């Protein structure tokens, strides 16, 4: 990218935005300033189409230590400990180069977590691709999974959970959302506000190169198009070894109380990290780009300011502590360079040696950004085509069950999670597929009990009904936590949508945020932070609207956490919670080639009450088996309990497809000794564990071996591995 040939429009700014910049500067920006503004005012950095909407979300709660606005949200988890967490997207980079795109997505979210002083202890991923019969989708899926594994495994942070869906609407524009959870002593948390005029600004970590230049504006804030291969140079390259040293070094710097503030370098690199630190601290910063260690010697000052080279952190250090900081960095072989200092000018001033090459008011870069009102308009009818039919309407229940278990959305994700290390750190007491949420014990950290973590969001249901679908994502996530006995402490979300300047996308976004808000209010769970990824559109149109919800909860007794699998012959099986299954928006309807245009309305307060009952039942400690009913309905949930436990079951259910395969939030399967199961508030006993087949009276009988073959075999077969 040469700047001379790139006026403001090529950098993604509108004419009126350009005028706004001139107004705020009192002159025309020079080339460097224009580049910095174009990034700081991009959708990705400034949330200019979503900021007003996000103000709707509840952000206060009794456990909150740090809310939205910091590098990550933080909640109190007792015993002086706090959990920091956040989810972020790396969609467009992954659509252009899946391995590095996904790898650096993980790297970026890890830095957000240790930037607040927390040690990253878990990663979860939410992935969306086109159907696996497309070669492009297989390539993106395989590459993204490898990239996530490469980064997470190498850095010693366990990948403990996640979800993957395959839908035609993600064919061009896949989604890669990564969530990280960190743990810190409350008194060691640090904020990113720069403070103390005269304090030194120190850049830590990797050298700065030309990679990722313009990533935030060129890639993340526009629709994908045919020539995206040419955008590969805007994708960053990750080096987990560098980040591993950086994590340990930063945490030791914080242990020694050597830093005044800390911030990661993400989108827009040095420009955004420095101006955001200055904005929060109400100060100015002088940066000398000639002091920044470079990978290539001839980089222009503007390139240095906007490079998105990975594995870099920016910190503010009191002058008298500088030597200690440099010594510690040297021990960890982490590059540390003083590149500037805190001033009282409230301007970001960029120097190249002695020459002033850019001078911008921090307020104009960060706070006084034009915000846009959405112009939502409900479309008439469904805007997405029906998916291709893969199953006849008239088939048997057995065929439907096996087809559902083999549908990649439901089938075992063993192919994925075996490529991740879920155990490093020695906290993980429930690995993927063994329970509905990942469970991490806190004993060795001086805490009590365990954290439970889940990430959820079914875009197809949101496409059917943005309000209800988004609310369901919150319920699903909270239900996964309830199934291991955990109470949610806070929520993070990533809003993946199409182009918000289009009225129907604006409508999806608005309705979805309303759904999130109402579900959060009903459950009493605050939003601690998140991320917005817009313009997720390819040549075939927008993605399914995909609000992804991540939650962190706490449970008192790790020893009592149930599993998905049936445990013992003779155990009674019951349905608890509030379950009103319907076929609209279900996986079965998808297989039959119908998308649907609405979902049944939700009684949110009733669902909130039901979740409290489920959690109380699980915490009773007498239910070895607990599994929520989600995609594929009750029959699939029961099949999964059989497969995981290696045991059959005999059940009597209502007749009809809706009872067997209908979906809807709120249903939970439990099993255990009869007396324990019958004592659960509201439990409806539906059968008994035993034999080596899943037998549903009058409907189906399939051996556990056959169920397992369909469930475990589908994804390896689709990939030919």
């Amino acid at each position: 990218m040469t700047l001379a040939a790139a006026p403001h429009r090529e950098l993604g700014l509108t004419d009126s935005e350009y005028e706004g910049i001139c107004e705020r500067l009192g002159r025309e920006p020079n080339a460097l300033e224009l580049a910095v503004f174009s990034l700081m005012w991009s959708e990705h950095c400034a949330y200019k189409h979503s900021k007003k909407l996000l103000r709707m979300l509840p952000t206060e709660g009794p456990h909150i230590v740090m809310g939205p606005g910091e590098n990550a949200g933080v909640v109190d988890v007792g015993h002086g400990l706090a959990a920091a967490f956040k989810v972020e997207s790396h969609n467009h980079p992954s659509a252009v180069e899946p391995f590095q795109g996904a790898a650096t997505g993980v790297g970026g979210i890890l830095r957000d977590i240790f930037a607040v002083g927390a040690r990253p202890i878990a990663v979860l991923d939410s992935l969306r691709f086109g159907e696996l019969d497309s070669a492009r989708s297989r390539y993106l899926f395989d590459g993204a999974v490898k990239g996530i594994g490469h980064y997470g495994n190498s850095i010693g942070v366990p990948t403990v959970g996640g979800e993957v869906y395959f839908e035609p609407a993600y064919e061009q524009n896949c989604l890669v959302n990564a969530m990280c959870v960190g743990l810190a002593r409350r008194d060691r948390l640090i904020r990113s506000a720069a403070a103390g005029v005269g304090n030194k600004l120190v850049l830590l970590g990797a050298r700065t190169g030309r990679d990722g230049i313009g990533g935030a504006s060129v890639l993340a804030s526009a629709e994908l198009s045919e020539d995206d291969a040419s955008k590969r140079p805007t994708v960053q390259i990750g080096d987990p070894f560098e980040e591993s040293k950086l994590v340990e070094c930063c945490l030791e710097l914080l242990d020694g109380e050597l830093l005044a503030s800390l911030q990661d370098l993400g989108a827009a690199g040095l420009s955004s990290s420095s101006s955001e630190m200055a904005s929060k601290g109400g100060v100015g910063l002088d940066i000398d780009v000639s002091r920044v260690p470079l990978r290539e010697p001839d980089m222009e000052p503007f390139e240095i300011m906007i490079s998105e080279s990975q594995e870099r952190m920016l910190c503010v250090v009191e002058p008298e502590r500088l030597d200690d900081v440099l010594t510690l960095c040297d021990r960890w072989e982490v590059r540390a360079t003083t590149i500037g200092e805190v001033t009282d000018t409230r301007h970001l001033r960029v120097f190249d040696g002695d020459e002033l090459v850019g001078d911008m008011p921090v307020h104009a870069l960060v706070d006084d950004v034009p915000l846009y009102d959405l112009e939502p308009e409900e479309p008439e009818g469904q805007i997405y085509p029906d998916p291709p039919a893969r199953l006849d309407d008239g088939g048997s229940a057995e065929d439907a069950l096996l087809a559902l278990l083999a549908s990649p959305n439901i089938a075992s994700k063993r192919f994925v999670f075996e490529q991740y290390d879920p155990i490093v750190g020695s906290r993980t007491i429930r690995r993927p597929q063994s329970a509905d949420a990942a469970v991490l014990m806190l004993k060795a950290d001086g805490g009590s009990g365990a954290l439970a973590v889940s990430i959820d969001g079914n875009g197809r249901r949101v496409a059917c009904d943005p309000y209800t679908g988004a609310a369901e994502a919150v319920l699903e996530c909270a239900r996964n936590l309830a199934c291991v006995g955990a109470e949610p402490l806070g929520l993070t979300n990533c809003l993946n949508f199409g182009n918000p300047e289009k009225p129907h996308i604006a409508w999806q976004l608005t309705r979805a945020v309303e759904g999130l808000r109402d579900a959060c209010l009903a459950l009493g769970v605050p939003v601690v932070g998140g991320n917005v990824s817009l313009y997720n559109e390819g040549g075939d149109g927008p993605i399914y609207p995909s609000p992804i919800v991540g939650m962190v909860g706490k449970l008192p007794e790790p020893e009592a956490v149930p599993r998905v699998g049936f445990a013992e012959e003779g155990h009674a099986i019951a349905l608890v919670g509030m379950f009103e299954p319907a076929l609209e928006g279900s996986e079965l309807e998808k297989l039959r080639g119908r998308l649907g245009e609405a979902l049944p309305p939700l009684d949110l307060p009733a669902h909130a009450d039901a979740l409290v009952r489920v959690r109380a039942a699980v915490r009773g400690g007498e239910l070895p088996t607990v599994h929520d009913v989600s995609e594929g309905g009750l029959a699939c949930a029961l099949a999964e309990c059989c497969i995981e436990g290696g045991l059959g079951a005999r059940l009597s259910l209502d007749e009809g497809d809706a009872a067997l395969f209908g979906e809807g939030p709120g249903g939970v399967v439990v099993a255990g000794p009869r007396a324990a199961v019958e004592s659960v508030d509201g439990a409806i006993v539906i059968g008994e564990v035993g034999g080596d087949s899943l037998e549903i009276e009058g409907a189906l009988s399939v051996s556990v071996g056959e169920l397992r073959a369909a469930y475990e075999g589908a994804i390896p077969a689709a990939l030919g591995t």
Partner: protein
Amino acid sequence: MKFGVVRFPGSCDEVDALMACRRFAEADLLWHGDSDLSGIDAVVVPGGFSYGDYLRVGAIARFSPLMESVIEFARAGGPVLGICNGFQVLCEAGLLPGALLPNNSLRFVCRQVEVAVENPDTPFTRACDQGELLSIPVKHTTGRYYAPPGTLPDEQVVLRYAPGHNPNGSMDDVAGVCNEAGNVMGLMPHPEHAVDPLTGSADGGRLFESLAMVPVA
């Protein structure tokens, strides 16, 4: 008895190994840049990606100042246990026969596997019975053991994957080997991640328990 657990830049499982050792004896971390092993009775070279595993797995770590001391310590008969990346480092250092090659799948694999104790007469397995099955997780990309024919006597095979449990295509299902003297052992499974039933299994503790029984010189 005091364990020393090596910490290279890029190590991942060193704190897990430290905590596992501390269940059975004293243990401290050893910094890769130091070379002092005084007071250490057994060395654990842990898993991870030392020096980013650049060049070739374990190839750079082998040259760290601390490893020079560990090599001396091993040659003098001191017990040294290499886990995963530690196994790779010990092979690179010439302390163990053979080499670790990329998994047949060419993918990272993490899985709980069963390994059988083939040789209970080593400092690392003396708490185990011959043929005892241990449930321990593996997690690696480069774990397929290979030694040229005739270079690995049977008694140096300490652990073998149980039938059907070989996760990587290792030659003869070899999961762990020792040197001729029996004081240096490497294995791909992670015993430090199998010391607590809550996290899946306590079987890996048998190895640390065995080492803790070694008489202190």
